[in-house]
């Protein structure tokens, strides 16, 4: 259930906008932060708030890298598989992360903690190989650094929201 205050805040933002459709991505981000991902309930809320059909919203929710239409873990790794990062570790750091965590791209670890998503060039090529951990840049990755990052995520008591 969407809390009434969040619903009101979003409805107000939409009503203030000159073109309410410009707010769609912001609304979807807010609902995603609340529910953890864009579950069916979140999609229905969005449709109601924005006065759009589910189909119109579905084609956006499934299009973007940072909107998650399926459940994700507490921590999200957007792992760069751009050509520069590939060069710094052939067959990619993405491949390494997947094998290390025992998942395929797009999947979440069995404990529900970490989701690995492929990302086209994160814009940190001078510090390749790189990835975004909950939206923050990590560059110059080595197997040791990756180990440390994962340990830190496992130890983190915070229930990290999806990145944005």
């Amino acid at each position, binding site marked *: 259930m969407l809390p009434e205050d969040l619903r009101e805040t979003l409805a107000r933002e939409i009503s203030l906008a000159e*073109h309410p*459709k*410009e*707010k*769609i*991505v*912001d609304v*979807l*981000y807010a609902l995603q932060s609340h529910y953890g991902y864009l579950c069916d309930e979140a999609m229905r809320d969005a449709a109601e708030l924005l006065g*759009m059909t589910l189909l119109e919203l579905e*084609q*956006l929710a499934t*299009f*973007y*890298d*940072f*909107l998650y239409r399926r459940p994700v873990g507490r921590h999200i790794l*957007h792992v760069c*598989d*751009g*050509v*520069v990062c*590939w*060069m*710094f*570790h*052939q*067959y*990619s750091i993405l*491949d*390494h992360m*997947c*094998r*290390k965590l025992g998942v*395929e791209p797009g999947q979440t670890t069995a404990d529900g903690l970490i989701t690995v998503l*492929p*990302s*086209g*060039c*994160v*814009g*940190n*090529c*001078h*510090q*390749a*190989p790189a990835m*975004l951990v909950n*939206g923050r840049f990590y560059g*110059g*990755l*080595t*197997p040791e650094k990756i180990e440390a990052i994962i340990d830190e995520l496992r130890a983190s008591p915070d229930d990290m929201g999806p*990145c*944005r």
Partner: protein
Amino acid sequence: MSTPFSPVLLRNRRDSGPLCLEDYCSTGGYEALKATLNKRSPGDVLEMVVEANLRGRGGAGFPAGRKWQSVPKGRGGPKYILPNTDEMEPGTFKDRILVGADPHLVIEGVVLCAYAVQANHGLFFIRPSYEMDAELMEKEVGIARQAGYLGKNILGSGFDFDLVVHRSAGRYICGEASAQINAIAGNRPNPQKGGPRMAVQGLWGRPTVVNNVETLACLPGILQNGARWFKDLALTPTGSGSKLYCVSGPVVRPGCFELPMGAPLRDIVFGQAGGMLPGRSFKACLPGGASTAFLPARHLDVAMDFDALAAIGHRLGTGSIIVFDEDICLVGATLNMINFFARESCGWCTPCREGLPYIGEILRQIESGQGREEYIPLLRRMARNMDYAYCSFAQGAVAPLLGLLDSFEDELREHIARRSCPFGAVVPAPPGKTCATGPVTFGPTPCREGLSCRI
């Protein structure tokens, strides 16, 4: 041009972080705006930009002044400026460096562009990976508004313009101007075929200017120092201004460097970026991101400028140089980029949606030693089919492939003749297949033996 070049766009780059408004103003910031609003007519500003030969820095290189001249004059309804910070071209990070170093230079450039075309609304379109820059821009836009550089009646001139930060949810195609307009309007971000000419009919059906932030950041300099000054910054006769070049790959100092437009490729890679890492030798580079063709070592002395690269059949793109050394398999690199573009294709039109995965499969077979001679003409034919795609995404996607075919066909043939990758690359095992354990090599040395199966 005997005086040493001093940076224009990155003159305020500091280790300490972004430049605040006070410091920007104390180094001559917003002076161009003060000297322009109500002192020059919008038409004069446009003429200066045309005279300065400012070309778009986002990849296409279209003359900015000509684009802006096609915006209808007058104030009959809203017009929009979209400063494009959706930078997702592999190898490119210049816009992030620019925005993060000098946000007010970008804001001043946007306001000047808005004045030239008499637009009143701006949406700063930014990718989610750059969230910290989105927050920075939101903060600095607020500060600029407080100081009277944005909002109603800017500096008492009667000109109104406001800028808001529009966050994207991240997808490569959103950097394409017509796709960006769809994205902002809450539609699926497909590019629109051949227009509508956005300068006349863009966002919400209104005149819209989409320009890369680096292009817009050139405006304060042009308006303050004149078109002649801007043209004289370049080293080549037909070039103008300075350029943010990015260098990545196995070089000593990868990074973003501002140099005169037309700086020789050799100076950028071997001067600014410190040359190749020890034990590596230059084999090729992509001169302007992953949507440009491989440029072999014999062209190292080319001037990094639109016309000079066009003269040898190449493109400047974003000016982001991705360097490859002799140990890197260019078939594997092309496969990586084709896979990237196949995933990032919006899927709207058939040549791109169906063609790129098909090309990827052929390349995968060649890379894994199952290639056949007839694949080479097949790849050429498939690459040509991309000319039938809706937007230029597909043609950019096959640029590295065409470069591979034109300059490194021997390498392709060697893969086919040896029935394996001469660089020892092993295409990753299908997901789920167990791999032998072993050492992993990261960092500047690509692991060449065993590769992913060792992980």
